[in-house]
């Protein structure tokens, strides 16, 4: 799957965009966040407060319980501040 990180989530993970194999047993956005948080201190810091994290699956805003599968593009970012 393709993973993208924006704003302070990008800064904390140190990654903007990467290809990552969907781990077994990862069904939802929330599952994915839990797996990513285990990837090291930067990722743990980035995903420490789930309330501050928003996600998009295939460029559409998605809730924590939205399903994810291996071909997806999943992005993580803080609440948007456009305009």
């Amino acid at each position: 799957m393709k993973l993208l990180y924006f704003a302070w989530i990008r800064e904390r993970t140190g990654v903007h965009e990467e290809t990552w194999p969907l781990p077994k047993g990862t069904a939802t956005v929330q599952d994915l966040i839990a797996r990513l948080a285990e990837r090291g201190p930067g990722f743990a810091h980035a995903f420490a407060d789930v309330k501050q994290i928003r996600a998009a699956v295939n460029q559409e805003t998605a809730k924590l319980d939205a399903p994810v599968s291996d071909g997806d593009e999943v992005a993580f970012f803080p609440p948007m501040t456009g305009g």
Partner: protein
Amino acid sequence: MSVRVQRDDFDVSREMDALLTGRKDIGGVVSFTGLVRDFSDDRNVGALTLEHYPGMTEKALAAIEAEAHERFDIQASLIVHRFGRMEPGERIVLVIAASAHRGEAFRAAEFLMDWLKTKAPFWKSEDTPDGPKWVESRATDDTATERWS
């Protein structure tokens, strides 16, 4: 109807003329231009850097614009949103709504701005005396978005 995401500045008159060229059914055109201020919550802000999500941004802006056409009696509209680094006084965003009736144009332009604040994938980083700082989303922007639902 059109949306654009770009690094470059824009010209309000030129955008308005392009949107309305040849039309004679428009009674009123409302534009909103958002600018970089040199203060924000009492911190001095030197410059603003806007990060966005290429691909999703264009889709999100088009969806917001389509929603405005669903909700309001407008005949033409435009959203132009810049990204990258901008100094105080620079233009960030332009919204135009045109209608036969002025009230609808005002309503649509304000709706577009309210939704852009919370539904367009942009993130702002401000230069402050303590270094760059990510702008947090505001409760007032959430409230402004919700009043349309």
